[in-house]
């Protein structure tokens, strides 16, 4: 995913396309699957972003549904991977089924 902080408005005063916002594109490959991020594109508005996303990312039936969202509207966790942001999930081993000792002769568990 493109980090929001790296993309401003593309710079003012450099002509129309330059001002078109960046959109991130998410495609649902088929029914039953989540939308997955596939890339980005520039468009003047949401409708154009959808049309371009279809032409660019689903030329071979790669999707049954598309989401586009302005990159600047995405909030993301900080770039530093040792950030304490994910730390709380590391020390809660009791969230995993393997944490619990169950005698071997208990069926189906």
């Amino acid at each position, binding site marked *: 995913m493109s*980090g929001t902080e*790296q993309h401003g408005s593309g710079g003012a005063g450099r002509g*129309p*396309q330059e001002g078109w916002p960046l959109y991130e594109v998410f495609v649902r490959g088929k029914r039953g699957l989540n939308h997955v991020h596939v*890339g980005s594109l520039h468009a003047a508005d949401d409708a154009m972003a959808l049309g371009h996303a279809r032409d660019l990312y689903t030329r071979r039936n790669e999707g049954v549904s598309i989401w586009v969202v302005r990159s600047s509207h995405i909030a993301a966790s*900080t770039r530093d991977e040792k950030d304490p942001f994910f730390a709380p999930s590391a020390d809660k081993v009791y969230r995993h089924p393997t944490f619990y000792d169950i005698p071997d002769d208990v069926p189906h568990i």
Partner: protein
Amino acid sequence: MTTPDAAEEEHQARFDATIARDQRVEPRDWMPEAYRRTLVRQIAQHAHSEIIGMQPEGAWITRAPSLRRKAILFAKVQDEAGHGLYLYSAAETLGADRADLTARLIEGRQKYSSIFNYPTVTFADVGVIGWFVDGAAICNQVPLCRSSYGPYARAMVRICKEESFHQRQGYELLLTMMRGTDAQRAMVQDAVDRWWWPSLMMFGPPDSDSPNSAASMAWKIKRHSNDELRRRFVDMTVPQAEKLGVTLPDPELRWNEESGRYDFGTPDWSELQRVIKGDGPCNAERMARRREAHAEGAWVREAATAHAAKQARRRARRAEAPEGAGV
């Protein structure tokens, strides 16, 4: 408290560990400035090549000999536009600006692949481009699917899936021509003769003269050297040429029992340098066409911007209007 230097060292150590573990670097990670610069240059150059690469084949869309060939060629050229856009998108995750990249291409400040500065003089060239040029692109790009920079690697996965169609349609086109008249067969051989050496040059200068390669390989941006990729291309292509019934224009080309690979001659590196410097047969034409296309598209971009602004104003007015008041 850590000093800025200590923090920098820690960042570097974590980056090195990511590369060493063969994990991917992602856009928001810290990365050395030189790594970022190298990637932006390589990805942009790659993107520009896809975009300029539409021209030599695009020139034949209106003159394709059948509706079937026209539809195929159209789809192929459209794919190349898509490849360019996937790659620009990847470059933007590194902080590059799309408009700036376009400007760099148009103003000649960034390069594109030398191969697209050769003319397509007959329809057989369309077939040979698919076979050689897209074939060479596949050799280059399959290893790039494991490139250390995540968005680049992912773009390459998409691209490689599409390149296989490109190569096969070219080869099939040539097979068809080879089943035709003597004149058609001669046309295929002529195209092979003209495109073979420039295609070998696509892999870049020899390793002994490729100063940036070592760093790119250490960073795992590139996985194989230019010479190794060139050899792979030759090994892949020679048996295909035999099946097709054409001769590759290299008297030194022969099977080497010992290495289990083909030996082949040396491309004319001075020609490659000339073409890279701007002095190939079509450099000026390609650049002029790209600039023209950008200028001709200006009104479309302006109209789309105006339309989007009008729609936004209408939506705002509708939102303000009291309920039931109409629009």
